[in-house]
C-alpha cells in the first residue's frame, strides 16, 4: 500500500524499538531476570516471557528485557532487577508472571515501583 510521510513516521516509531536494541545498549530501562539454574528451577522462564510479552503488547520504547546469571540469593528466586536511568535499581523477588504484568504497568509505565514485591518487603 502506498504510504504518506505520516505513515512512514508511524512505521518508524513502531520499528524503532526493534533496531534500538542494537544501537543504544546502555540507555533506557532494563529489566533483568536471574536465569541461573536456581532461577529457572524457581520458575524464572515464565516470568521472563511475561515481561517480554507485556513490553511487546504495550509497544514500550527503549525497554530491554535481559537475563543474567545467579544473583546470589537463590531462596528469593525468581529475582528481577529493574533499572530506570537516573533512579536506584529496584530488586523484585519471588516473581510470577502475574506480578510481572503489574510491575510493567506500575513501575515501567507509571514510574511507581511496586513496593510489596521488592526485596525490602520480603526481608
Amino acid at each position: 500500500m502506498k504510504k504518506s510521510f505520516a505513515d512512514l513516521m508511524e512505521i518508524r516509531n513502531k520499528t524503532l524499538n526493534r533496531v534500538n536494541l542494537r544501537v543504544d545498549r546502555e540507555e533506557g530501562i532494563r529489566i533483568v531476570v536471574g536465569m541461573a539454574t536456581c532461577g529457572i528451577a524457581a520458575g524464572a522462564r515464565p516470568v521472563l516471557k511475561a515481561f517480554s510479552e507485556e513490553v511487546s503488547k504495550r509497544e514500550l520504547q527503549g525497554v530491554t528485557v535481559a537475563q543474567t546469571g545467579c544473583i546470589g540469593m537463590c531462596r528469593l528466586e525468581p529475582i528481577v532487577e529493574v533499572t530506570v536511568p537516573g533512579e536506584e535499581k529496584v530488586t523484585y523477588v519471588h516473581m510470577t508472571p502475574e506480578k510481572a504484568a503489574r510491575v510493567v504497568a506500575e513501575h515501567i509505565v507509571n514510574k511507581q515501583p511496586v513496593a510489596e514485591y521488592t526485596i525490602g518487603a520480603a526481608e
Partner: protein
Amino acid sequence: MKIYRSHVLVCGGTGCTSSGSKQIQEELAKNLKKYGLEDEVQIVQTGCFGLCAIGPIVVVYPEGSYYSHVKPEDVEEIVSEHLLKGRIVTRLLADERVGDEVKPLEEVDFYKKQKRVALRNCGVINPENIDEYIAMDGYTALNKVLTEMTPEDVIDIIKRSGLRGRGGGGFPTGLKWDFAHKAVGDKKYVCCNADEGDPGAFMDRSVLEGDPHSVIEAMAIAAYAIGADEGYIYVRAEYPIAVDRLKIAIAQAEEYGLLGEDILGTGFNFKLSIRLGAGAFVCGEETALMTSIEGNRGEPRPRPPFPANKGLFQKPTILNNVETYANITSIINNGPEWFASMGTERSKGTKVFALGGKIQNTGLVEIPMGTTLREIVEEIGGGVPSGKKFKAAQTGGPSGGCIPAEHLDVPIDYDNLIEIGSMMGSGGLIVMDEDTCMVDIAKFFLEFTVDESCGKCTPCRVGTRRMLEILTKITKGQATMADLDKLEELCEHLKSNSLCALGQTAPNPVISTLRYFRDEYIAHIVDKKCPAGVCKDLLQYKIDPAKCKGCTLCSKVCPAGAITGTVKEPHKIDPEKCLKCGACMEKCKFGAIYKE
C-alpha cells in the same frame, strides 16, 4: 508489532555466507524452537560487519556480544547458555575482550578508528526489511528534499558538503549534478555504478547487500535534483546476493510508493530498474557502462560529449558510484557542514576500504579521510601477520600504484595518493610483505588489463600486451636494460594515447613500482635474481651440506626426483630437474634447504 527481548544478528554478506552463515541461521532457528525461545528472540540477517576474516559472525543484542568463527555445532551452546540463561559463551567471543567482560562493538580496536557513514546500517538492520531502514530515519531525507527544497537547494547542499565521487576519479558530486541539472533535455537519467571490477574490492557489494535502500533513496534524490524520472543500477551478475536484495528493496519501495508515480504525494515520479553486467572491467567505465545499458557491446566512447549532456540514450545523465550515493542521505539529514567537518582540506567525509593481502584483519573498514596508511595497516588492520615486514600497499587496483613504507604516514586523501604515485580508486587496499616481488605484482596487474582491454583502441589493446611481454621477460631473467627503457616509453605512450582511462591508467602499477622499487627491476635484469624469491625462473633451491643430515626426507617428497644422495650423506638438488615447488624446503627438519 511484536517486540523481541533479544536479537541475534547473523551476517549474511557474501564472505560469511560462503563460510556457512546460512547453516548457522537454520541451526539457530531449530534451537530457538527447541528451547521455546522463538517468541522472545529474533534472528536478523544483516549485511557485512566488516570482519570477514573471522566469520561467520553472530552478534547478540542487547549485550552486544560479538561471536566469531561460529560453527553450526556451537549454535546450541549460544542458545542454551546465552539466550536462555544469559551466560555469554566467552570461548566464542572475538579476540578483543578483557577477561569475561564484553566490549561493545564500537570499542573493539578494529572499530575504534572507524567512522561509519556509508556503512552506518550495514550489520545493524535487516536489509530485506524496509521498515528497519525507515526506523533508522530512512526516506526522511527524500521527504525533506521533495517537500522543502528546490533542486538547486539540493545541489547546493551536495556542493557545500565537499563530497567527491567514490568510484575512483574523485570528481565533485555536486558539480556533476549541477551540469546535468543545467543540461537541456526532454528526458534525463540517473545511473548507479555497481560494477566494482577492481580485483579484491568489495565495498560496493557490501553496501548493496547490507543497506540497499540507502542507494535507492539517494538515487531518487539525485533524480529530483537533476530533473530525471528514470534510473538504472548497473550491477555485476557475479553479485547474486546483492542483486537479490536490490530486487527485494526496489519491490518494497514500490509497494510503499517511494518509487514509482507521485512519490509521497508530491507529484514526483521516479522509476528504477536493475541491469546486470557480465563482469567486464571496462563496463565500469562510465561511457562503456551506458553503452552496455543501451544493449550494445560495452565499449567506451570518446568524451566530449560528456554524459551530463549526452549520456544514456544520448540524454543528459549522471552516473555515480554506490558508495557516493550511500553518503547522500546522511548529508541531507545532518547537513553539509557535518559532512565537511570530517576529512581533509580537499577530501571530505569518509572512505570505505576493502583490506586484503598480508594483513591480520582482512575485511571492510570505513575511515575518515586523512587517516594515515599506518593507522589502517597497524591499528585497524592489526599489522602484517607472522612477524613479517610491511613492504608496500597497493591502492586503486589496476589503475593504481604501490605505496612503500616510507609513505606510511601520509594522510590518505585523493590528492595525496596521486602525489605519491597511486590513487584512491574505488577502495581496494592490498597489503604486501617482504615476500612480495614488485615486478611480479606489476605483471599481475598487466595480465589483468591485457585480459580486460576491450580492444577498441590500439594503444591499449596492443600496448598492454607488449608491456606484459617485457615484464614477463624481466621475471624470467631474459631482459636487458634496453627493454626497461622500452617499457617506460610504452608507459608514456599508453597514458597519453588510450581512448579511456582503462588504457590511460594501465601503466600505473609499472610506473609506481619503478619509482619506488627500481632496484628490484635491475636485480632481475642485471643480476638475474629475484630479491623476494618469487620469480621461479630466477630461483635455485640448494642444500647446505653443512646442515644436511642425510635423512632422505627431501628426496622422498620431491615430485620430480631431482634430489639424490645416500643415507647420512649430504644430498644434492639437480637444477635441471627441479620444478621449484618448494616441497623439500617445507619438509626439511634441519633448515638445510634454501633458495637464492
